[in-house]
């Protein structure tokens, strides 16, 4: 381990290399935590679907919730594109990171906005039995996590737009947030397959 990494600076700002390493590893652990959070919904989907208690998994008789495939595809595309663009931005020259980070941020926010729009015209509600419960919970909380990640992206945009954070930290931060977005994209793919295709 490089000993110089541990030297504190007079104003309390830690060495950029140490901050960068912490952010990178922290993002990976956070991504694992987020993954386990959604494992609960993944399990709930499989468990309730398999049990089909009282034949109510797909909703009440004569009312089977069917979410809009158009919204589902649009949200999926936005999340995947956001992750891909953020990853690409992490690999770009420092001078070009800003554009990539802003694009990734806008795509994330678009996905959240689309989710809100879908909720406003869903055609069913959380009370429509098993599948509807899992759908509303999984997609709603996913949007919340995406919004939190969008905040993180916004701080990255602020960093690359100004001169407050060191280049090493900027690079680590965008790499870290792109990693979390990739994991979220994976979760969104699973959600799309289960909630829209398998049902």
């Amino acid at each position, binding site marked *: *381990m*490089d*000993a*110089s990494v*541990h*030297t*504190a600076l*007079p104003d*309390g*700002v*830690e060495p950029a290399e*140490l*901050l960068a*390493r*912490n952010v990178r*590893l*922290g993002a990976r*652990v*956070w991504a*694992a*935590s*987020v993954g*386990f*959070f*959604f*494992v*609960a*919904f993944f*399990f*709930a989907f499989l*468990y*309730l679907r398999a*049990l*089909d*208690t*009282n034949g*109510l*998994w797909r*909703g009440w008789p004569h009312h089977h919730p069917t979410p809009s495939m158009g919204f589902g595809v649009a949200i999926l595309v936005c999340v995947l594109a956001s992750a891909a663009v953020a990853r690409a931005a992490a690999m770009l020259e420092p001078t070009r990171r800003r554009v990539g980070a802003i694009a990734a941020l806008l795509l994330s926010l678009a996905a959240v906005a689309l989710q809100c729009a879908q909720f406003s015209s869903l055609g069913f*509600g*959380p*009370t429509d*039995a*098993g*599948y*509807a*419960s*899992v759908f*509303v*919970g999984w997609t709603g*909380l996913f949007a919340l996590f995406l919004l939190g990640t969008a*905040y993180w992206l*916004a*701080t990255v945009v*602020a*960093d690359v737009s*100004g001169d*407050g*954070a060191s280049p090493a*930290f900027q690079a680590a931060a965008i790499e870290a947030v792109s990693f979390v977005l990739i994991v979220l994209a994976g979760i969104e793919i699973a959600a799309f397959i289960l909630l829209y295709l398998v049902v």
Partner: protein
Amino acid sequence: MSATAIPVVRRPVWRRLIGFNMLTGLVLGIAGWFLGAWVGGQIAVGHDYLLGTDQNDVGAFVGYLFAVIGWLVGLGFANYPIGRLLGRPPTLRHHELGGWTRYFRLCTDHKVVGIQYLFGVGIFFFIGGLNAMLMRTELLRPIEKAWPSGQYLTLVGLHGTMMIMMTSAFILGPFGNYFVPLMIGARRMAFPRVEALTFWLTPAAGLILMSAIAFGGLPFGWTGYAPLAVEGRGGVDAYVTAFILIAISLTLVGLNLLVTIVTMRAPGMTWTRLPIFVWGVLATSVLMALAAPVLVATMTMVLMDRAANTSYFLASAGGSPYLYENLFWFFGHPEVYILALPGFGIVLEILPVFTRKPLWGYRLAVAGMVGVMLLSFMVWQHHLFVSGMNAGLRPFYMLTTELISIPTGFIFLNAMGTLWRAQIRFTVPMLFALAFFFNFLIGGLSGVFLSDVPSDVTTHGSYFVMAHFHYTIMGGLVFAFFGAVYYWLPKMLGVVLNETLAKIHFWLMFVFFNLTFMPLFAAGFLGMPRRVSAYAPHLQVLNDFVSVSAFVLGFSMLVFLANLVWSLVFARIPAAENPWASRGLEWQVPTPVPVENFERIPVIRSGPYEYGVPNAPAVADFTPAALPAAGS
């Protein structure tokens, strides 16, 4: 090394009350609760399904949400995130200098956070203990006497939930935060603001949980099984919110400690030189980071079932209460090891110091902890043996549960090997460490009965289970906690605790702990069910004996409190820098520990347990010429 002087800014007391601190947090939290309850009511007005319950759960949850936001804003947690959004550079420090007011506000010094945890969690531990005293008072008679059964059940639920919530952070909160950076040669935690946040969520959770009393109480124990959790009165909203907050806190504690240990070790602090306590913390951190999010998700599902009328857990609408049991115990069993693993770390940390011998089988101990960590994710269904689970799954979970006794046995082997032919110093920390092994052995052996399907079927839901987990959690974790308190408090608070009072505390606690819980195995075998205040008349003598023992056990805690107050407020005998002659890195720094911990980052030269090893080098070089000083 020399201590870094802490400049204290003197301001009038009234001026110190204004600003971002606990008082502001309380005011904004209370205002937030009222505002949130009103907003929640407005949200519910337009949605029939939100109003489809007999109480305003939406208002309750939004009230709690706004209260927590107000609490955190008042403490100053919103300032940095907003600043970052405006392009301010990332920093790790906030209010690390100053006097006693540091302890009542957001402070990023890991030592301040450790002490905040020690007192904060300690207060809730005593409240949980008082609940236990009230329960034992009720159980002096076989029929309902002091409280109706509903209130008794609320007491049981509050006691269990508060103890589980608070003891989860009982060791990692105070000692993990305070000592891990010192033990690995770091100046701070990886994410100091997150560290502070994890603490300040804890009192919010505790207060919200206690508010359950005002909203109809709890109809269950700490496990909060559905459908009771979905259909219970408003107190359940408090239970759900408190558990979500604690689970978020646990996740972040795990993340922070994990990253700190991996990235911030001093040069020369290789994995094989890592103190065994830090290994225990590392294993626990993994469990926290992965298991606690599942609890957040589970409690969020309960929240949605209650407030939005979803049906995750209601069979009448396509859900299943078994889903709750599975998800809860997927967190709940690793939680048991979240409680146990730091205890293992502490007692193995203490043993070599007071036997003056190297820790026997260091790598075996590490393997044991990692083994427990991995296996703990594969055993949760043993809690469902009598819940109607698929009978074909029982042997698998019985086997995995029994397997976990093997890595746990490693820890006992380490202890026996270290104690073998040692010249033991029977100091108070050592007494608590030895008592840990005695108690945990009984807890572990009784656990085998519960992992075995035939015997579990007959003992499930009885006082046998209650006695078992109190032997592991109180007999294990709480004894390890007090061992750590007596071992590390001289470094944390800079004063020596009175040894006579400490020994009185130990013997009272050890003897009456066993007199309280040993008879409960018999009560369980005799058919006494948990969580019920009425019992068969022929069990009264046994229960009276247990109640009296429990009261003395509770009194032993007062002896500890008296010792703490006496030593801290009145006697104030300064502690030596290294009173136990320990090789631990944390004992090589001055008392009180400087804000920067180390004037220069040390270079680690040898392991921490090389007691009696001829020509063993000093544990660290504190003046490596190549490394610049702090602030230079």
